[in-house]
């Protein structure tokens, strides 16, 4: 009787995970606990951070087989959701249904500011490859500067899956930190007088224009960069649901239920890719550092483009609007408004900043399409 009991207890010790815990796993749990704290106590992007942190915690437990190729539950979520390009485009469907292109259509010249901010993406790409990472990794790191979560995940899954968790966390953290990262750059690059420039009210936009836009833009931009099609097509379809006003149910489903469902699977799959062997590497610090640089350079390049446009145009553009070209919608636009109001409290830049902000989303999609095409 005695030896049998001992034998069974030994068996428990063997099949349970305790004996196989490594210190690296412990570090990852600590990181997950930190994310739980940030999400729950600090309300820091909780919709994404909470599932990411949980995915991260369970993916770093021994013997679970959760990420075992072909068998594991989280592996299937990741493989069929992210790797086969299903979830990011579905998120874009919801974003399309939530986006009002009105402010952009009302001041069309401001869309060039959304293009300007992408220069930062490509500059960071060059910087990263000079520092010795390969083209695919450099592209994945550069796109962080676009400040667009689903696009970053889409590109990472295609080009550098081992960096996916890291760049996703970097992109979402920097998006949450937009109000801290951008203002010092914006103040440094503009004069008090420039920040006081008031914008001329835009023209009125007819509803028919809003209906034509997603169709026309979908056609043109997908023809220009075919590789951007999965994200661009869903974005424009969602927007057509919204503006056509004849499919309220589909619009509501895309922006609420469907979006919420895929957000769950996006979060947990991204977290599950963050295994200790993927994450605890010197490269991660490098990614966070370059991601921050990408973000700052994108902010600056948007402002520079605005100043260049002012050299040629009669109606001056407030160069702060260039900072809204990074596509953190609508955080970047809010930051522009706040910095503008500091200089002149009667200057209301918010709705003007929404134009470049949304154009920035389109710009980042084009940039991602180019990376997919040329860095494959």
């Amino acid at each position, binding site marked *: 009787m005695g030896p049998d009991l001992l034998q069974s207890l030994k068996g428990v010790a063997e099949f349970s995970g305790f004996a196989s815990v490594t210190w690296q796993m412990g570090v990852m749990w600590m990181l997950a606990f930190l994310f739980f704290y940030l999400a729950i106590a600090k309300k820091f992007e909780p919709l994404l951070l909470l599932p990411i942190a949980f995915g991260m915690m369970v993916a770093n437990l021994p013997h679970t087989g959760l990420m075992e190729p072909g068998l594991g539950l989280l592996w299937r979520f990741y493989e069929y959701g992210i790797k086969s390009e299903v979830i990011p485009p579905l998120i874009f469907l919801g974003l399309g249904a939530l986006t009002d292109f009105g402010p952009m259509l009302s001041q069309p010249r401001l869309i060039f500011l959304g293009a300007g901010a992408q220069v930062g993406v490509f500059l960071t790409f060059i910087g990263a490859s000079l520092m010795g990472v390969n083209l695919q990794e450099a592209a994945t790191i550069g796109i962080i500067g676009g400040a667009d979560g689903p696009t970053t995940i889409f590109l990472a899954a295609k080009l550098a899956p081992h960096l996916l968790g890291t760049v996703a966390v970097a992109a979402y953290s920097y998006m949450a930190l937009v109000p801290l990262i951008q203002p010092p750059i914006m103040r440094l690059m503009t004069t008090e007088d420039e920040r006081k420039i008031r914008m001329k*009210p835009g023209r009125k936009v007819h509803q028919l224009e809003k209906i034509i836009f997603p169709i026309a833009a979908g056609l043109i931009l997908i023809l220009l960069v075919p590789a951007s099609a999965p994200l661009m097509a869903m974005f424009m379809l969602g927007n057509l649901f919204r503006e056509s006003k004849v499919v309220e149910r589909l619009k509501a489903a895309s922006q609420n239920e469907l979006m919420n469902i895929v957000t769950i699977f996006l979060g947990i799959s991204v977290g599950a890719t963050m295994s200790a062997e993927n994450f605890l590497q010197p490269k991660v610090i490098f990614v966070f550092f370059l991601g921050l640089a990408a973000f700052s350079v994108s902010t600056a390049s948007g402002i520079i483009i605005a100043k260049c446009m002012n050299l040629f145009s009669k109606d001056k553009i407030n160069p702060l609007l260039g900072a809204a070209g990074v596509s953190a919608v*609508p955080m970047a*636009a*809010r930051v522009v*408004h706040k910095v503008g*109001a500091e200089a002149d*409290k*009667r200057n*209301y830049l*918010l*709705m003007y900043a*929404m134009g470049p902000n949304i154009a920035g989303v389109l710009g980042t999609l084009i940039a991602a399409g180019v990376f997919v095409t040329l860095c494959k």
Partner: protein
Amino acid sequence: MEKLLAPMAGNIWKIECKEGDSVNVDDVLIIMEAMKMEAEVYSPATGVIAKITVKEGQDVEEGQALLEIDS
């Protein structure tokens, strides 16, 4: 008579004054909301609020009249 116009498109979140109130230049009269952000609208003149032409919760266009001040 001075008209206060909506400085941007958005929703009237709170009206911080009543008809008949005397106000100073730069007092906060109305708080608007757009893109989940509050924006204060300041008095353009010193005087008495003659008429408020919007209600809380109403959506307004840029340039729409919000209230009138007798100055």
